[in-house]
């Protein structure tokens, strides 16, 4: 879109201390990052909390992003590392969290049947499969880019995508 600053320009401005530039980075990437985390964490509230942590981590480490480095790839790599790191503790505290979530005012956000069905189907996949499916099938990433973000061999990503697609199609009753 003409007039829209590039990622590199926004990163440079944010590195110089511009909160406006960083807020635009958040605006630009919040939906894909949250979407990715919602698919791999399954629990929507956990995912959104983690997405906030991803952007906070990005702000803290903005100077480590290499010149010319792809912001989107970098953000997703942070998200994946955070998701992996929290997977174990999330599983441990899931029961406690559900009790807390039920008390939240926004706990019963209406969701479409399709979204719920997808959420339940994704929960049947392994975390690595979910991540590959979330990036390549839902996000439209290439296998190569997904492999770079997830730090997995290309063949492994292809295999996860293929198996994940087959399993999801089976669970959702969709013909491939």
């Amino acid at each position, binding site marked *: 879109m003409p007039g829209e600053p590039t990622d590199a320009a926004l990163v440079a401005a944010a590195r110089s201390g511009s909160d406006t530039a960083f807020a635009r980075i958040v605006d630009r990437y919040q*939906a894909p990052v949250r*979407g990715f985390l919602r698919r791999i964490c399954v629990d929507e509230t956990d995912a959104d909390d983690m997405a*906030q942590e991803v952007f*906070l981590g990005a702000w803290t480490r903005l100077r480590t992003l290499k010149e010319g480095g792809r912001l989107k790839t970098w953000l997703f790599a942070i998200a994946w590392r955070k998701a992996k790191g929290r997977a174990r503790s999330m599983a441990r505290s899931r029961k406690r969290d559900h009790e807390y979530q039920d008390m939240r005012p926004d706990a019963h956000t209406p969701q479409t049947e*399709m*979204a719920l069905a997808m959420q339940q189907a994704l929960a049947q996949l392994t975390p690595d499969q979910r991540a590959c499916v979330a990036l390549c*099938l839902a996000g*439209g990433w290439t296998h190569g880019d997904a492999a770079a973000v997830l730090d997995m061999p290309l063949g492994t990503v292809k295999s996860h995508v293929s198996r994940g697609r087959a399993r999801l199609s089976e669970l959702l009753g969709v013909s491939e």
Partner: protein
Amino acid sequence: MTDSDMTGADPLNAFFRAGEAPAADARFRLAVMEKVALRRFRVDLALRLLAAALLLIGAVLLAPVLDGIAAALGGTLYDLFLVLGVAGLIAFAGHAWLTRTIRWPALRLF
């Protein structure tokens, strides 16, 4: 299968689209920026406390030397250096106040 095949008319796409986050979410942005401001404040506060602690330690370590200098300079100059020292401390505190990144009423440490 190529990458373009996957993004085309995939029957799973409708399911994926159903669970997407909103494209623009001011509440999310606000929550992130609030956390950013809080982290900046904490880092800023830690750095200033460190600087103040170093100044204090320096002053304590240099106290015997400064006492000797003060005795050699005599009462009037000693008072002058005392005033300069206090003025410096006030300037440091004033700078910290004027360049603070969070207004005190909005301040939440934890």
